């Protein structure tokens, strides 16, 4: 069975989603992975590691919907 695309067009609860977060995503005390992100205000590329280079980073994930 083909897995659903990341940007799904229709919300369907995924019972595996929480397990992915709890069991397979990085855990507390691990090193945080870093990825490039785009600043909405400026369009500049920001490496996540820049967020915690000199400060503590509080990172909330979300969307409008």
């Amino acid at each position, binding site marked *: 069975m083909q897995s659903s695309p*990341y*940007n*799904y*067009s*229709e*919300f*369907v*609860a995924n*019972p595996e*989603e*929480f397990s*992915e*977060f*709890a069991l*397979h*995503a*990085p*855990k*507390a*005390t*691990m*090193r*945080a*992975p*870093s*990825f*490039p*992100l*785009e*600043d*909405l*205000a400026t369009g500049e590329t*920001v490496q*996540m*590691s820049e*967020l*915690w*280079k*000199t*400060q*503590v*980073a*509080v*990172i*909330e*994930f*979300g*969307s*409008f*919907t």
Partner: protein
Amino acid sequence: MATGAMDDLAGRFADRAVRSVFIYTREAHPAENYRHHASMDDKRRNARAFLEHSKVRRRILLDDLEGTAHRAYGSLPNMTWIVGRGGMIHYKSAWTSEADVADALEGVLDFQANRAKRQWVAFYSERSAWSTRDMAKFKAGLERAGPQAVADYQRMLEANKASRAAPAEEVGPRIPGNFYRTEDESGNR
């Protein structure tokens, strides 16, 4: 989402060397008014609409279209993570509770300020957390997204009717954010 409360938290901790950001992911409940992202322009457009509506005061950073960062961090729709100076993960939460984040953040700042002096050593730990679910606000968000979002969520409720009709005494209504199973469900009596 507790957007305003998290903005307030960001303001309270900003002068204590804490940087707070909001990472914009895929749409959790796409519908007629705010559709799923087929391009980065779609994602930017919805993120700007979110900014306009929510007046978020934190820096908004967009993940890429494929959700590379979001997927690496576990893909849940409203997680919060705290990463210490240097890159160690101190906190990961399936949902966002401002009170829980603030509590954890005080601990992280204490650890970072005093670990050398007090010879503290970090170790792994888990605990549960809790928050109030504002269903009226959540439903208003679904309606703002469009009728499809309301219908999609209703369909999920119908599918989960049995477990939702009988919330566990220990954890309250079921949400996709904990491992709990009743004795009957787990087979452990």
